[in-house]
């Protein structure tokens, strides 16, 4: 992981997101303070920090879901493959098709398992039955859910268990064939065994996708991620490889958090 003080020769590098001097306010409350970071591709990046540190806010900036909140004000720049996602030319539909998201609480739509996964491809214009069927099958396989649901694709998505629902939501994001998958505490509503399945899944997906996962579970960050960003009170305190963050943090606050002295 490169922090902002490293060299700045972008474009033909491996960075998916380049964030510079990002400030974000909810009304008058500043939630992100001068965050600058580059997020590497083909890696799992974990974002850790105590509740209210801005980690989920940061994640929602990356697919601009944050723009749904009218009181939000933003300064600085966020580049996705060298393109500023806050510029006028950006197409949110395309951005969100490329930058998928999985939420904290599994949120399957009140539709069948098949229709949940097919939702994205359908709205992006894939119509033929065979095309959809292939995509749904592949996505469910990638999400390690196919074997469990292949015989009941037309049952409602909510009939699945919590862990299965979350994998369904991952499959739904994958069906859009995104480049990036954002995960906002994807296992915090799940039991331990479902959590392990999601973690295995995250590791298996890292070859094909850039994954950014917010977690308040540090063991999880250690288990699944290559790089880690540590946020505190809206500031990015430290960004480095997960190994360095966990074994040899540069900042005292990171060390305090890692060793469980607060949070």
């Amino acid at each position, binding site marked *: 992981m490169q922090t902002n003080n490293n060299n700045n020769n972008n474009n033909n590098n491996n960075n998916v997101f380049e964030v510079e001097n990002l400030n974000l306010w909810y009304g008058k409350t500043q939630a992100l303070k001068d965050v600058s970071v580059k997020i590497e591709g083909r890696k799992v990046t974990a974002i850790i920090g105590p509740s209210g540190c801005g980690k989920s806010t940061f994640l929602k900036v990356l697919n601009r879901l944050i723009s749904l909140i009218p009181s939000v004000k933003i300064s600085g720049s966020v580049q996705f493959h060298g393109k500023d996602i806050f510029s006028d030319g950006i197409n949110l539909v395309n951005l969100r*098709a490329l930058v998928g998201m999985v939420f904290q609480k599994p949120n399957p739509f009140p539709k069948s398992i098949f229709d949940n996964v097919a939702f994205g491809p359908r709205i992006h214009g894939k119509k033929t039955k065979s095309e959809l069927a292939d995509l749904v099958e592949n996505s469910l396989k990638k999400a390690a859910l196919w074997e469990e649901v292949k015989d009941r694709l037309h049952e409602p998505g909510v009939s699945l268990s919590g862990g299965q629902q979350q994998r369904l939501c991952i499959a739904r994001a994958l069906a859009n064939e995104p480049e990036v998958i954002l995960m906002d505490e994807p296992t915090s509503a799940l039991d331990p065994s479902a959590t392990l399945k999601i973690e295995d899944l995250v590791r298996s997906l890292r070859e094909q996708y850039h994954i950014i996962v917010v977690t308040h579970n540090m063991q999880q960050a250690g288990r699944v991620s290559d790089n880690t960003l540590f946020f505190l009170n809206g500031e990015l305190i430290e960004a480095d490889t997960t190994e360095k963050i966990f074994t040899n943090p540069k900042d005292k606050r990171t060390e305090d958090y890692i060793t469980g002295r607060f949070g």
Partner: protein
Amino acid sequence: MNKKDRQQAIWFTVSGFFMLMTLAVLAAILYSIFKSGAAVISWEFLVDAPRRNMTAGGIMPALVGTFYVSSLTVLIAVPLGITSAIYLNEYARQGTIVRIIRLSIRNLSGVPSIVYGLFGLGLLAATFRLGTSLLTSALTLAIMSLPWVITASEEALKAVPASFREGGLALGATKWQTIRQLVLPNAVPGMATGSILALARAAGETAPIILTGAAFFLPNLPTALSDRFMALPYHLFILSTQHTQIERVRPLAYGTALVLVALVLLLNMAAIIWRYQMRKKQTW
């Protein structure tokens, strides 16, 4: 029994008693209408026109007129109300202006119906030259029903979890795709129930239609929007207060009331049953 238990027992008893009183009033109304009206109810009463200066015959033209005017009301008010609710709840930037609009709508639902009648007469019948007609009455009732339809539809939209909207948008759906495919299908039961209840109220309203198009007596059924019409509530009003032989037509008045009440109860019941059925299917 300690003090807390005693307090609880007292409050349960008191609230139960008042609940029973309310129920008793309702039962008394239904009983008296049924007792005095059931005798005249027959197939002929429903399909025959009033005869011999309204002292005999049935209520068919009033029944048909009420059906026409309420259906028209729904056809006008429901699309307008639902689209307004979608705009207010999904598109409009939530701020002072929307708050004022919403407050005005809530207040409009408290305006006495006679005022709507006067409005319909002054603006629609006179200024817009629609005359006193089926259309004018339906428009007036639609304007009166709009606040209820909008409010019910907004509640139905609010009840759809935000996670559906977020999930749809995060997949790259446009706002309209999200609304159309994820929000609306799940808001339909609430919207439909609200619309049926508004229909039931419109069917029973008297004041607005007296001023805007309901007729005392018509030999023929309305065949055009510009025709006047007979309606159950107005017919009831005439039979019970305006007739020259009030005592003699009282059973007919009660029969009319019974039909009107049954109609409204049926509509309400349909709404409740429908909502129940949809809730059973609803999985969130």
